[in-house]
């Protein structure tokens, strides 16, 4: 774990006497912790890029809003382990006076840290983790789940594929809690839309050799093989499916994929696949402008996790300025009351269960000949409106939701 401390624009602290508001910000510094996977399977889609996004948010905020308080960013590698991340978060809150912990890719780290945050009465803004548990049985009032969840990505993709005629499904599922919940979310959607699920096979996590599981999927005769896994498990299964001549006879549906996966696999292998994302750099002028700035730092285009990280920190900082306080309850109340409006989300709102509901996008991967410039990977097939994209509040198992 590398902890870097970047004191950004200490000069901002010079605006000491500019109002009574500052009196309520503890030692007049807002500290943001970025706890993420810097070296493991998810470092591409979050990792250093998420830290870059966080820094951009702080710089932009300081340039535009000229706040009367200083902002510091600390970051650390949680190695995708729940125990390491909760120890780090505890230390940050206890010793280093961190006000908000952000990013938290992988469900285990997110669940661990949001419990620590609740105990210490600090804020957790989750961008990278996927499980719907964060806003259901494990929800709390200091956490916001910002970017996406298994329901929203599985929902969009499965629905679209069934509508395109992919009626019979077989799931290749990573054998752990996250894989199971992804499979469940997707098969519900398949069945609800008139498709049927022929079966599923669970592979050990993390896996390297998917050949025998793919053969089972092949033998099932299903039209669509749903990949209920993530990261390198997904990219490996796609590659091996091609090796065994399974694609293109049967088609694959990646239930949780990121633009970085498409980038590393290449369009030749992934062409015509459907996937759902919460953000695409090439959506409109606003996203292109931001993403090109990001590209200048990171040398690659942002994923939805990195874009969501920026959006979350920006909204938080605006909340601190508006309330003139870094008090958890005050800032959370402001954040939930004020709609999010930026390049990432339009008129998006944070629900009682901590879910930020915003538009999601159904993408289809371009064929190699359709791609005109670097990172030109997707056709945006459909905008899934915020109201439909996420699990309805009525179905939430979160105790905070008043029914």
């Amino acid at each position, binding site marked *: *774990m590398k902890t870097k401390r970047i004191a950004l624009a200490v000069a901002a602290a010079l605006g000491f006497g500019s109002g009574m508001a500052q009196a309520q910000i503890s030692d007049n510094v807002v500290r943001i912790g970025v706890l993420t996977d810097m070296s493991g399977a998810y470092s591409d889609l979050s990792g250093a890029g998420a830290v870059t996004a966080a820094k951009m948010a702080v710089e932009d905020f300081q340039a535009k809003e000229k706040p009367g308080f200083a902002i510091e960013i600390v970051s650390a590698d949680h190695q995708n382990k729940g125990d390491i991340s909760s120890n780090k978060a505890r230390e940050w809150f206890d010793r280093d006076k961190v006000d908000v912990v952000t990013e938290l890719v992988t469900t285990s780290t997110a669940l661990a840290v949001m419990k620590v945050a609740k105990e210490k009465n600090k804020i957790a803004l989750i961008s990278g983790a996927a499980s719907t548990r964060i806003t259901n049985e494990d929800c709390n009032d200091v956490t916001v789940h910002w970017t996406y969840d298994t329901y929203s990505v599985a929902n969009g993709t499965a629905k679209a594929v069934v509508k395109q005629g992919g009626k019979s499904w077989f799931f290749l599922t990573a054998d752990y809690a996250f894989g199971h919940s992804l499979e469940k979310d997707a098969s519900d959607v398949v069945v609800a839309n008139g498709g049927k699920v022929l079966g599923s096979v669970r592979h050990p996590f993390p896996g390297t050799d998917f050949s025998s599981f793919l053969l089972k999927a092949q033998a099932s005769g299903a039209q669509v093989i749903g990949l209920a896994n993530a990261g390198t498990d997904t990219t490996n299964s796609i590659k091996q499916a091609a090796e065994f001549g399974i694609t293109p006879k049967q088609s694959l549906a990646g239930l949780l994929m990121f633009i970085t996966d498409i980038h590393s696999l290449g369009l030749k292998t992934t062409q015509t696949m459907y996937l759902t994302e919460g953000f695409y750099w090439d959506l409109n002028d606003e996203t292109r402008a931001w993403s090109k700035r990001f590209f200048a730092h990171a040398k690659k285009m942002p994923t939805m996790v990195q874009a969501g990280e920026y959006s979350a920190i920006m909204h938080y900082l605006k909340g601190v300025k508006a309330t003139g306080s870094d008090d958890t309850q005050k800032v959370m109340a402001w954040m939930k009351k004020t709609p999010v409006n930026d390049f990432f989300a339009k008129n998006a709102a944070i629900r009682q269960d901590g879910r930020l509901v915003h538009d999601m996008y159904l993408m289809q991967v371009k064929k190699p000949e359709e791609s005109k410039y670097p990172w030109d990977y997707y056709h945006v097939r459909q905008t899934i409106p915020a109201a439909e994209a996420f699990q309805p509040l009525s179905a939430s198992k979160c105790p905070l939701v008043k029914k």
Partner: protein
Amino acid sequence: MTDKRILLAYLALLVALLAAPLVLYPVLVMKILCFALFACAFNLLLGYTGLLSFGHAAFLGSAAYVTGHVLKAWAWPTELGLLAGTLAAAALGWVFGVLAIRRSGIYFAMVTLALAQMVYFIFIQAPFTGGEDGLQGVPRGYLFGVIDLADDRNLYYVVLTICVGAFWLIQRTIHSPFGQILKAIRENEARVVSLGYDVAKYKLLAFVLSAGLAGLAGATKTLVFKFATLTDAHWHASGEVVLMTLLGGMGTIFGPVVGASVIVTLQNELADKVGSLVTVIMGGIFVLCVLAFRRGIVGEAAALYRRMVGR
């Protein structure tokens, strides 16, 4: 050293431990205590019986999960939760023991490692462990219904009591007739057999005891961190406890405690500075210990002391 001086040394250590949370971060000290207990339990087997188990993480992990589960899902009282974890680990230890003691030496190590890996795979798939997500949000509860363990200070003294008690038990075991027979098995198994002892039974009993105490460490650790994760059951944890014992000095009473303190502190300090190089450093210490330093810190210190006193 005379008995009186040993007693004084124990007392001084106890006073230091009682005062520790005033100066140090209590969570870190509790982690050290848990691992010290884990290493002492392991040392009972390696140091005093001569059996190298490479699967002790299975006991640490299963107790952690069982305790976590009964506290969280079934809302058992804290003390019963600790007991359930300890007994579960002891039962698992019995199963491991029955299988593993059929082979000795290197095979014993490989068998325990393989069995522990099997347990690890089961934990990944079992629904109650939460797989990769781990079992999160375990309530600490109240001890005997009165002492609020949510407070780190209160918990610290409970953990300290558990560890001191377990340490005392290990100490008594080693000096009991049972302990003498274990040592005899380590030195010369054939002779113990020829004296008419059922060696397999003694080995099994030692294994179950060691597994149960390792389980107690795992159960206590769940209380401290409020979660149980796969890290506890991973073979890296099995390797770590071997390293702690080796570094501190196997077959010495205090060695594992010293080894655990050094390793946990080192990991805690280094994690921020060198990232994943921590594993490399641990491996390096391992190699160094085996090549040049086989008696461990306490063993070397005792040898030095004897040389100075014995002239």
